[in-house]
């Protein structure tokens, strides 16, 4: 049993998805999905323990040996990502039953959970697999179910947002497919480990350059990296709230993982950063992304839009950490992936609670909510402080590591720009806080009460995690550092 954990991680949610059809009762399907997601979380915890104590796990699918068969390969980075995805998925699902009651017609509830589980499968699969073509297949599983989930939003804009995402996402995934094909043409293998050994021999050919370009652009489309982010704000804003919370916390992290995996492991550090000037390009795009997206966030009148733009800015921080291309920089990126999942999960779940009570998240509807929904608003405040990077929250930890990494390289100007970017976060978070705490409530919202327990429990689980991992950083930093070191080939 314990040796089959890597495949169970992916196959359990995959098999569970169609089983939901048999249950076909909203509450039953919810409990079942929650159980499955919880099981996936347990497996990811076990996998992380196993990886941290005894090193990389390699699992051969169907017993076919690695470069020929498909290999599932779990190292520290994979295990860390699996933990983030399955953990957030479980916490978010906890609130799903109450939330979709008001947002999705009853006859579609079963389909919602099926798509949710398939999306989870896709993300877990992308991370677990060690085969480049498998990545594409799982990417499409998670993307196709994501398009359908987003289209379930209440407003008709959800359909349009989903269509735009479908076009952009498919172009991105097809680019990745072309890149993988070119790699295969040059090396005759699809196994990532094998690719990383064979690619250096042919690294100076134009085919490999082109394949690198296709993979990177494709991944960056999925990543919503500035300037390829245009699909993200509407997709997040119009999707059902639960879907937003799940995707905001996990989907872009998976794309960041792919970026790291392809540049560091498959193409190798010297190719990605020496042969090709990826560093300068990504540093510039990351910084521009932080400023443009944060500034746009300030002018949004819909709070979901506001935090969606903030997500794009946060991706900018991850890209900056990534392009430092040192162990410290990569550690900062990995930490920020974990931390950002916690903060955005908490914030978007709190917004789901607001939608449950009020029906929309226009900024003007937030008037006076600080007194009417004190616990929900407090969660947004703490999540917001974490976004800014206030001490005692997780946001501080990742910003601290990022700044240390930059200063280590002597890049003072960039460190200053990062701090200025955080100031912009103060502005947009303050806009929400000001309206919620210092304005009188709207006439129609005068009777609004605190959100039900089914929201408060998952929201505060994430908020407490935000504070806990901001103070006791042992687990997150240790794992992130180990993962970064193994990517650089340094033995810890």
């Amino acid at each position, binding site marked *: 049993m314990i040796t089959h954990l890597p495949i169970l991680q992916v196959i359990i949610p995959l098999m569970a998805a169609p089983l939901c059809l048999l249950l076909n009762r909203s509450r039953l399907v919810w409990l079942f999905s929650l159980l499955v997601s919880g099981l996936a979380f347990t497996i990811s915890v076990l996998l992380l323990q196993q990886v941290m104590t005894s090193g990389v796990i390699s699992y051969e699918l169907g017993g076919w040996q690695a470069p020929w068969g498909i290999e599932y390969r779990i190292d520290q980075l994979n295990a860390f990502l699996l933990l983030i995805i399955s953990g957030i998925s479980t916490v978010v699902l906890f609130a799903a039953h109450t939330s979709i009651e008001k947002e999705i017609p009853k006859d579609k509830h079963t389909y919602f959970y099926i798509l949710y589980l398939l999306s989870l499968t896709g993300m877990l699969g992308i991370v677990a697999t060690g085969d480049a073509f498998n990545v594409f*297949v799982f990417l*499409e599983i998670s993307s196709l179910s994501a398009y359908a989930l987003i289209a379930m939003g209440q407003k008709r804009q959800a359909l349009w947002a989903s269509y735009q995402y479908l076009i952009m996402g498919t172009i991105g995934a*097809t680019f990745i497919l072309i890149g993988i094909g070119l790699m295969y043409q040059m090396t005759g293998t699809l196994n990532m480990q094998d690719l990383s050994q064979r690619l250096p021999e042919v690294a100076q050919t134009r085919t490999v350059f082109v394949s690198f370009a296709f993979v990177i652009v494709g991944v960056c489309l999925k990543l919503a990296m500035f300037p390829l982010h245009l699909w993200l704000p509407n997709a997040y804003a119009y999707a059902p709230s639960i879907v937003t919370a799940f995707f905001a916390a996990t989907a872009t992290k998976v794309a960041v993982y792919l970026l790291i995996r392809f540049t560091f492991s498959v193409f190798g550090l010297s190719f990605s950063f020496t042969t090709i000037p990826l560093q300068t390009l990504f540093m510039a795009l990351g910084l521009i992304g932080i400023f443009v997206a944060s500034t746009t966030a300030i002018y949004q009148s819909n709070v979901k839009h506001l935090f969606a733009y903030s997500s794009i800015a946060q991706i900018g921080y991850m890209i900056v950490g990534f392009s430092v291309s040192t162990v410290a920089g990569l550690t900062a990126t990995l930490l920020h992936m974990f931390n950002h999942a916690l903060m955005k999960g908490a914030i978007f779940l709190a917004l789901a609670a607001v939608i449950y009570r009020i029906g929309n998240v226009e900024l003007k509807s937030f008037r006076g909510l600080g007194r009417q929904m004190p616990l929900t608003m407090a969660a947004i405040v703490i999540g917001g402080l974490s976004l800014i990077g206030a001490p005692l929250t997780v946001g501080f930890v990742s910003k601290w590591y990022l700044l240390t990494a930059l200063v280590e390289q002597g890049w003072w100007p960039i460190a200053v720009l990062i701090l200025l970017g955080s100031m912009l976060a103060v502005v947009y978070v303050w806009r929400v806080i000001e309206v919620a705490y210092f304005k009188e409530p709207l006439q129609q919202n005068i009777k609004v009460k605190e959100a039900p327990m089914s929201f408060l429990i998952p929201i505060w689980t994430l908020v407490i995690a935000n504070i806990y991992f901001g103070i006791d950083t042992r687990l997150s930093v240790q794992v992130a550092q180990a993962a970064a070191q193994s990517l650089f080939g340094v033995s810890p």
Partner: protein
Amino acid sequence: MLIGLFNDWIVVVLMMIGLYIVIAHGNLIKKLIGLTIFQTSVFIFYISMANVDGGTAPILADGINQYSNPLPHVLILTAIVVGIATTALGLSLVVRIKESYNSIEEEEIQQQDNDEQLSMNKAEENP
């Protein structure tokens, strides 16, 4: 040189036609057609990549020792299925868009969204 890479040229031309349609056309169905052409070019790319000169289908038989590479063909079967799923999902989205916007032209849809936003802002100014 040009003749030897004939397949690749076809792939590139199809790919560019497909991407151009996706970018240049405002009609949602035409965009999906462009997307399908774009994906098809990648299928051809994989299939022609696996071809070995003088090779036959990879079935063991006497007197044959040149086989084409079956793996990319198998891979692309998967990608074709994914492509069909994408097109089906895209078309069904277009049906729903047509139902709720009564249009499948990008400009008109965006116009309607903008109008809605404007009327909401107006309502806010004079309550």
